[in-house]
């Protein structure tokens, strides 16, 4: 592939690497504790399997992006890399979606189920997790763009003659 095609993908992958690494790190370091009515609230990311899944998927995505950054682009592996890109983009998408669902319950509660919001008691944890989710969302969007761009390169868009 020519240099003009490789540079945008390289920049996008760099951006995705930064986003997924920061999402992982911020989620793993989120912690807060509070004492309400002699009950100790200790909020960590391991308390919820959703957040563990989010941290795991973002770690996998950052490792994969790191490996691909140093990968010489040959056309023989192009299709295989496309399928792997699709899988990683779908996993990132599912992890951010699940975390947003759980985070919404944590922030607003669910009156029908009798679940109280916890963001009032552990605000630092909530803000930390919000930052991690923003980074994860950016990573998911950038990966979708990478996928579209890889499709564009492999399919030679705009050479369809009408």
């Amino acid at each position, binding site marked *: 592939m020519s240099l003009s095609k490789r540079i945008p993908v390289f920049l996008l992958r760099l951006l995705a690497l930064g986003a997924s690494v920061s999402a992982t790190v911020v989620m793993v370091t989120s912690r807060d504790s509070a004492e309400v009515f002699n009950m100790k*609230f*200790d*909020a960590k990311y391991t*308390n*919820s*399997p*959703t957040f563990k*899944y989010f941290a795991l998927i973002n770690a996998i995505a950052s490792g994969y992006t790191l490996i691909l950054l140093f990968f010489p682009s040959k056309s023989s592996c192009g*299709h295989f890399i*496309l*399928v792997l890109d*699709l899988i990683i*983009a*779908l996993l990132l*998408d*599912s*992890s*951010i*979606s*699940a975390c*947003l*669902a*759980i985070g*919404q*319950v*944590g922030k607003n509660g*669910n009156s*029908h*189920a*009798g*679940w*109280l919001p*916890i963001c009032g008691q552990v605000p630092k944890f909530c803000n930390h997790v919000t930052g991690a989710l923003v980074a994860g969302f950016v990573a998911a969007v950038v990966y*979708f763009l990478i*996928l*579209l761009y890889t*499709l564009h390169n*492999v*399919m*030679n*868009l705009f*050479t*369809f*003659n*009408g």
Partner: protein
Amino acid sequence: MASGEEKTEVARSQVPVKGSKVELVVVLLRFIAFFATLSATLVMALNKQTKTITVATIGTVPVRATLTAKFHHTPAFVYFVIANGNASLHNLLMLVVTFMGAKCNFKRLAPLAIPILDLMNVSILSGGASAAVFMGQLGRNGNSHARWNKICDKFESFCDRSGGAMIASFIGLMLMIIICSLSIIKTLRNNHNSDKLVPNSSVVP
């Protein structure tokens, strides 16, 4: 140029080419995925359970409260229903285009719209399915750290039905991932073939 087009038309109408087996597989998978996502949408949308439980007892008179569990109490399930409805509509549209679109000559960017639409719907469907799964896991097990009680011990049939809808949605999701990869590969192959023959080729999804 004209003889090349005739050759393409003749080849497509007569002997089944190797590509038509892939098309048949894609059509079959789309049928199954359409029914899977449609059943997931319907089961979750009609998911409702009402239960009267005793909240307190005043003297000997029990105070009863009627609690309802509906799918639209949770934004995750609402997103699940919308995503599955969207995916089933997309599959229906693609099936219609497959059967009616053989006469139409798709030019320029239209053959590219199908893999891209497939990609977008797969993403949305995966987001909806996973959000519903994690919300269901929260409802089934609760979260002791956040003092959130589980609700599945009171509303068993609600939980079972939503679990069935999630299974159907995941079957649809797996099939749609396969369909997406197959349609991308098919578009790639059509692109390479059309580079050799004529620039104008009709593509059937």
